[in-house]
């Protein structure tokens, strides 16, 4: 069992080619701009309800999903747009879902917290904290039973460490060597409470107690996330069982779009420090230039393109029709 308590992930010297790095950037940028647009939709009162922005955490979703095959499974959370896009979802259909339109991934029935995209192995976001740990573990069990070599990644925030279901699932996954990766994005906060007030002991000791190898790394470094994910995915695919993967990260915005006054639970200065020196997108841009994979011009072209994609997506969604009212009692039963 490969324990790695708090040590940096093992260095993986295999080369990552330039194209892959550019993909990282494009995908992370897409999430960033998508989420900024979501915030705009909220501020302009065009979006029903609320949404939980993924801005600041982009390297996690992208680093992990780039290490997956299209037919691998993921499950996601209330803060799920990033995972969904990283697994390959279309911007148009996502915006349409957020606006409750029939062209959305769920025909407008799911909304921000329930986007599922079966063709790309996305088994759905989940508005119950920890609620998808059973689903991801079950998908892994199913993959094993069917003899496919699919892997399941279960994304959750550190708040889900409070849910007993996670421990029940880790126990079974470890016993039965299921190909599941528990991916804990520790962004420091459970809603409006610092995780240190809700989390006793050491996080990584928890999965390790169930015999599950655990990695704990900087989640702002997409390359490190990707390399680590690749190793864990490989492991799972080979039938060596589950792993637990902690990415240390930060959400730059509020818990949800309406969470504007945050000073009572976290300092402005802390936010500025993360946004300044720990922005995964900026860090990657520096690296791309350093590696000479991209120059300023290429980056700004990518940004322009992505912005167009996002604008086109919103446009599409704004113009899309609502579901017919007769759909209300369709899809209750299959």
């Amino acid at each position: 069992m490969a324990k790695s308590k708090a040590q940096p992930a093992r260095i993986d010297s295999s080369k990552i080619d330039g194209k892959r790095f550019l993909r990282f950037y494009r995908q992370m940028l897409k999430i960033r701009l998508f989420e900024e647009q979501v915030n705009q939709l909220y501020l302009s009162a065009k979006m029903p309800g609320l949404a939980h922005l993924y801005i600041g955490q982009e390297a996690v979703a992208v680093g992990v999903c780039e290490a997956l095959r299209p037919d691998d499974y993921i499950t996601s959370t209330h803060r799920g747009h990033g995972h969904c896009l990283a697994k390959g979802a279309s911007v148009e259909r996502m915006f349409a879902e957020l606006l409750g339109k029939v062209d959305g991934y769920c025909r407008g029935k799911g909304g921000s917290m329930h986007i599922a995209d079966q063709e790309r192995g996305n088994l759905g976001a989940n508005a119950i904290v920890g609620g998808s740990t059973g689903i991801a573990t079950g998908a892994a069990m199913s993959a094993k039973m069917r003899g496919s070599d699919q892997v399941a990644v279960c994304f959750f925030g550190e708040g889900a460490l409070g849910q007993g279901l996670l421990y029940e699932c880790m126990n079974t996954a470890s016993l039965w060597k299921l190909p599941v990766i528990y991916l804990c994005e520790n962004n420091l906060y459970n809603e409006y409470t610092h995780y240190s007030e809700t989390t006793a002991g050491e996080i990584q000791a928890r999965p390790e107690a169930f015999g599950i190898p655990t990695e704990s790394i900087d989640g702002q470094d997409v390359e490190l996330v990707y390399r680590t994910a690749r190793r864990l995915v490989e492991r799972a695919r080979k039938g060596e069982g589950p792993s637990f993967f902690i990415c240390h990260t930060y959400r730059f915005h509020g818990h949800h779009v309406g969470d504007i006054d945050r000073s009572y639970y976290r300092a402005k200065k802390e936010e500025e420090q993360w946004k300044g020196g720990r922005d995964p997108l900026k860090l990657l841009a520096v690296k791309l230039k350093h590696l000479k994979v991209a120059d300023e011009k290429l980056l700004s072209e990518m940004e322009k393109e992505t912005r167009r994609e996002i604008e086109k997506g919103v446009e599409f969604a704004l113009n899309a029709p609502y579901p017919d009212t007769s759909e209300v009692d369709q899809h209750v039963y299959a």
Partner: protein
Amino acid sequence: MKAPAQQSTAVREITFGQAINEALAEEMRRDPKVFILGEDVAEAGTPFKVLSGLVKEFGKERVVDSPISEAAITGLCVGAAMTGMRPVVDIMFGDFVTLTMDQMVNQAAKIHYMSGGKLKVPMVMRTTLGATRRSAAQHSQSLHAWFSHIPGLKVAMPSTPYDAKGLLKTAIRDDNPVIFFEDKMMYQLKGQVPEGEYTIPFGLADIKRAGSDITIVATSSMVQVSLAAAETLEGLGISAEIVDVRTTVPLDKKTLIESARKTSRAIVVDEGYERYGVTAEIASVIAEGAFYYLDAPVKRIAAMDVPVPFSPVLEDQTVPTPQSVVEMAKTLCGKV
């Protein structure tokens, strides 16, 4: 009794428990996607011995012993069902469904709808109900009303070995999450069951005994209680029609209402707690649907609204009995 969808010829007498076992075995043979997950389901064949022998035929990969983790095993089945399997999760006592409600209700029941019809969850939860086993308050409940309340779930409640086999096979083939309630006191009940393949469609009530003076609608083992009551009532000159709903969801309102319209009196009998229970829904469906035909209010007989007591002298009072059904029927028919 209505003819089953598909009939086979050789019929033997087997127990309710054997009928369940047979349905599972047949479905597992037919479809390699079907598997069983639960506590002590393999060698032990559950504490009720209902699954005896299955592990021998299908192996420990398809009859899987789990840790004591009702929430997780239910969740695992949801995930497995979403990705191509057809799991049957075994929740030993119906009282333990309390631990699975999030997975069943916030997940399994809603996934098809929330995904706009793309994902589906073809799973079965088998669990038990029923009191008088001297098992006290945490091992005797009949909590089917909760599941019946939740859109997206179906709920089956067989009353005979024949129905148990046919309904369980239908449950396993259904593309939705189905909760299948077995009265643990009925496992030894014997009845005629065809050897081979047949299924019973959901949403079809079954008139277990025809009658003209009063309609008695019942679920699960309360059908047996009502049939016993009907015998007595016959001796008193009251002809009772016994309607078995078989599935509370979907509910065959038409058959219930027609029967009540015909007899002009109705009693609903169920072993869940009375208050806000299954009898309330069925009684109000009948009261509305047969309003202009009823000679008396629809009456409900259910478990007493108390936690199930241990002491036999107390416990026996809390459940409907043939005698309590007879008394109520006599009152309704003006024969007191």
